């Protein structure tokens, strides 16, 4: 498994604090790249709302999860607003989980 694949797997265990769905399932991760020469993960993330009160918690959880990888010494997170998050970014498994929780999607 490549480092990048491991990092994606790690992100699948980082949940949105408000809904028990991963940040990957929520479609928040716009891009992820591993810079081998600097042992750094570069991540671009968006959020469902600009006023999301959990933005900093989520970034802290992501940073912790990625730094747990033995090949990562640094994490660079950039918050972007384009692409604009819509429900279309939800993954199918996240939609299923949200419906189980009684959340209309």
């Amino acid at each position, binding site marked *: 498994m490549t480092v990048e694949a491991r990092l994606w797997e790690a992100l699948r265990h980082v949940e949105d604090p408000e809904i028990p769905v991963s940040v990957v399932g929520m479609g928040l991760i716009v891009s992820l790249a591993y810079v081998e020469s600097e042992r750094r993960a570069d991540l671009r993330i968006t959020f469902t709302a*600009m006023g999301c009160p959990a933005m900093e918690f989520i970034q802290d959880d992501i940073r912790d999860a990625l730094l747990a990888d033995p090949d990562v010494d640094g994490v660079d997170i950039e918050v972007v607003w384009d692409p604009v998050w819509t429900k279309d970014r939800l993954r199918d498994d996240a939609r299923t989980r949200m419906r189980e929780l009684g959340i209309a999607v």
Partner: protein
Amino acid sequence: MSATMISLIGSLADNKCALGRRYGEWAVSAPTIESAVAAAAMAQDELGHARSTYPVLAKLGVERSDDGLDAGHPLGVISSELPDWASFIAANLVVDGVLTTFVASTRDSSIEPLAQRARKILQEEGAHKVHAGAWARRMGQVGGSDLELLVQRIDEMWASVARWPGPDDHPGYREAMEAGMVAYGPAEIRGQVRGWLTQLVPGISLDEPTDWSDWDDQLRR
């Protein structure tokens, strides 16, 4: 970078910050539980827009603090608590209306960080416009003193907020348009908001500002 754009972006953030605070103050005292929830949600949106807009200034090389809720120099009409629900709806219609129409003019701005945020802000502002429009129609149908007060509050807000974009022939704004930083100018912003409001609220006539002698292009008022 254009001094006019720096002024507009900084003032946009300041006013969104103040508007968020004003909305938030009504989150426990709106006339219906649904509007109290809407006020809280809109407050959260506006504060998020402010928090996301200040970093655009940093990207343009301008240092501005976004510490605290009283940052900057917002318009006088939203600098203190809104006295009644008609003022809340007037702010929702006029202040949010003018600021959002400006944001719409930056959707494809050559200032890429601004354009990126504009698309997200416009997505979220759609619900604010629905809320404002629904309440305006409701108060219009009721008529009487409720409508009279709404019209008075809209007039008061317009007199101040219509000046925010500035004079239509402002050289800095013209340069910003020519450079593709904004798609249209102050008169077009006022015209779009005026067109929406005069259809929505019976009995208002929103004049184009004419006296710019005391207008401050940094404070935008």
